[in-house]
């Protein structure tokens, strides 16, 4: 039982992080109808930036306050992500308005490759550390209930909390800020939004910046967990089924989807994987989603699509 709970909790933690990345997807899809395959690349890029900046600033400016270094690195990285967002809007999306989803998807594939290449050219391609002081030591809960209690990694806990906070923050942002409402308007109908004078290009820059911010946070958390390396980009691939499961356009969907898949794949790994050679996390989420889609083509929380003729 304790083991089960442990697994579930572990799943939830991982799920939270998936949601975090999924959130990036959803934001961008809602606002610009782009299925941003590059989200993973952005995570890697942001993490790389964060990691290297936090090394470079102390060297350059000759100080050794970790906090300061991290803060500066964070700000710089964020600025970089905004720049990236701006460039993507200028050079890519701006030129592909009103194109089909497929085309845009492929474009983001291009962006992915570019960012991966660019990031590693600029920041190097070794494994780097991010240390924002997340505690690494484990933590035992409910020791009373079962003997041995339930082991939870503190780092995960913090991460989950941060992720949750971010998710809530963004939902609020969408609900209550004017920009947020503008974003929703754009998502619902580009032409209409434009006609009531919402500047699409600026909105897109904002959205991509927000996505960049999310990517940065995700990057920091995963980075400090696994170390910053190319494989980070692949974490995004884990998040894809989450988005689809939740429904491309739904923020809560992204969160719940994340949790479902996080828990689901852990349980599956533990209870099924062990019997069939293990490592089934890689595809579990996808196959799960596949079956869900057969029932609900628009995902759990997505809107139904009607063809007008």
């Amino acid at each position, binding site marked *: 039982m304790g083991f089960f709970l442990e697994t579930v909790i572990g799943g939830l933690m991982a799920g939270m992080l998936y949601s975090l990345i999924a959130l990036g997807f959803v934001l961008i899809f809602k606002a610009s109808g782009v*299925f941003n395959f590059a989200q993973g690349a952005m995570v890697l890029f942001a993490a790389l930036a964060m990691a290297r900046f936090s090394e470079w600033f102390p060297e350059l400016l000759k100080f050794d306050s970790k906090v300061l270094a991290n803060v500066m690195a964070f700000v710089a990285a964020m600025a970089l992500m905004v720049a990236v967002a701006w460039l993507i809007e200028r*050079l*890519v999306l701006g*030129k*592909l308005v009103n*194109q*089909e*989803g*497929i*085309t845009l*998807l*492929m*474009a983001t*594939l*291009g*962006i*992915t*490759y*570019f*960012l*991966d*290449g*660019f990031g*590693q*050219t600029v920041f190097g*391609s070794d494994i780097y550390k991010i240390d924002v002081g997340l505690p690494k030591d484990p933590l035992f809960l409910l020791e009373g209930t079962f003997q041995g209690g339930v082991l939870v990694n503190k780092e995960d806990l913090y991460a989950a909390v941060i992720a949750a906070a971010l998710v809530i923050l963004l939902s609020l942002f969408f609900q209550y800020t004017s920009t947020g409402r503008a974003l929703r308007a754009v998502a619902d109908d580009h032409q209409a939004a434009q006609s009531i004078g919402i500047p699409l290009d600026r909105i897109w820059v904002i959205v991509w910046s927000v996505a960049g911010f999310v990517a940065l946070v995700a990057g920091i958390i995963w980075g400090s967990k696994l170390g910053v390396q190319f494989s980070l980009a692949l974490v995004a*691939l884990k998040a*894809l*089924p989450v988005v*689809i499961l939740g429904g*491309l356009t739904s923020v809560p969907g992204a969160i719940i989807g994340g949790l479902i898949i996080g828990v689901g794949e852990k349980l599956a790994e533990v209870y099924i994987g062990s019997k*069939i*050679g*293990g*490592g*089934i996390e*890689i*595809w579990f989420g*996808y*196959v799960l*989603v*596949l079956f869900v*889609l*057969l029932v609900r*083509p628009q*995902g759990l929380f997505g809107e139904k*699509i009607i*063809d007008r*003729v």
Partner: protein
Amino acid sequence: MLYRENGQFKTSYTSDLQVFPIAQDRIGIALLLAFAVFAVPLLADEYMFRAILIPFLILALAALGLNILVGYCGQISLGTGAFMAVGAYAAYNLFVRIDGMPMLLAILLGGAFSAAVGVLFGIPSLRIKGLYLAVATLAAQFFCDWAFLRIKWFTNDSASGSVSVSGLSLLGWKIDTPHEKYLLCLGIAIVFAMLAKNLVRSHIGREWMAIRDMDVAAAVIGIRPVYAKLTAFAVSSFIVGVAGALWGFVHLGAWEPAAFSIDRSFQLLFMIIIGGLGSIMGSFFGAAFIVVLPIFLNQALPALGALVGVTISTAAVAHTEFMIFGALIVFFLIVEPHGLARLWSIGKEKLRLWPFPH
């Protein structure tokens, strides 16, 4: 400029329906083939065969298959690598488990298995569209990666998890020199290119394109989306599977699942984007481009660096390659969504109208 079309009038539909209705084109293609079959073997050295020609032909074949699905039927797929893998491993198992199994048959059956799997993962495409489908195909990718890595049966319980084949022969003709391998691949590529061309210019091809361009209208004129999409998946994965088998058997000889990873899927997707969506010819252009570019960069960049006195590491080259591919994809999607093939046909039109611009 080279065209002299006066007097080339068609007195029957058959002659009007030819793949190359213009005499000059027929001559051109004949010369090209003759060159590929007779001249290239004389000119190319071992490295050429191994590093460029054979990979080019096989990947072109795979791209061709993918193009049928994405370019003609408009169903995005990010799982091509998986279907190549299925083809390769199926062929492998047939080849090693059934003794006396002819190589070619094994390869074709590999394609057949791949087709079956393709249809299986294509089924979602009946309910779901575009982006959602992309994810479904990714499912295929990851599942197959896993299956061929973890399920020992597929790899014939080989300890290392890598498999290998040897003693290739075709109807008694032993195929071991690169030259022979090249000819084998060339032959298969040509045959499949022709078959594919026939399909896309027949009514099945029109059904695919109809679904791609305007699925509601297609349904209204009586095209069954189910049939159209699944046939596209089947044909596509069949060709991709054959390519996969060739990649394993002929190009690699010994391989691991990594040979068919998601990167392979993306690489093939890039080939058809750059080469030209919805164009047989384009698949070959794209493959040539993407096979040659890295090799070119590997030569050029360090040399360039040397000029300005910078030493450029192989890693750097690899990253530049990434950047260039990424940039190119975006560039083509924006500037010429129909890729090199379109540029080619525009050039051809210009030659036909020469000296007039239009």
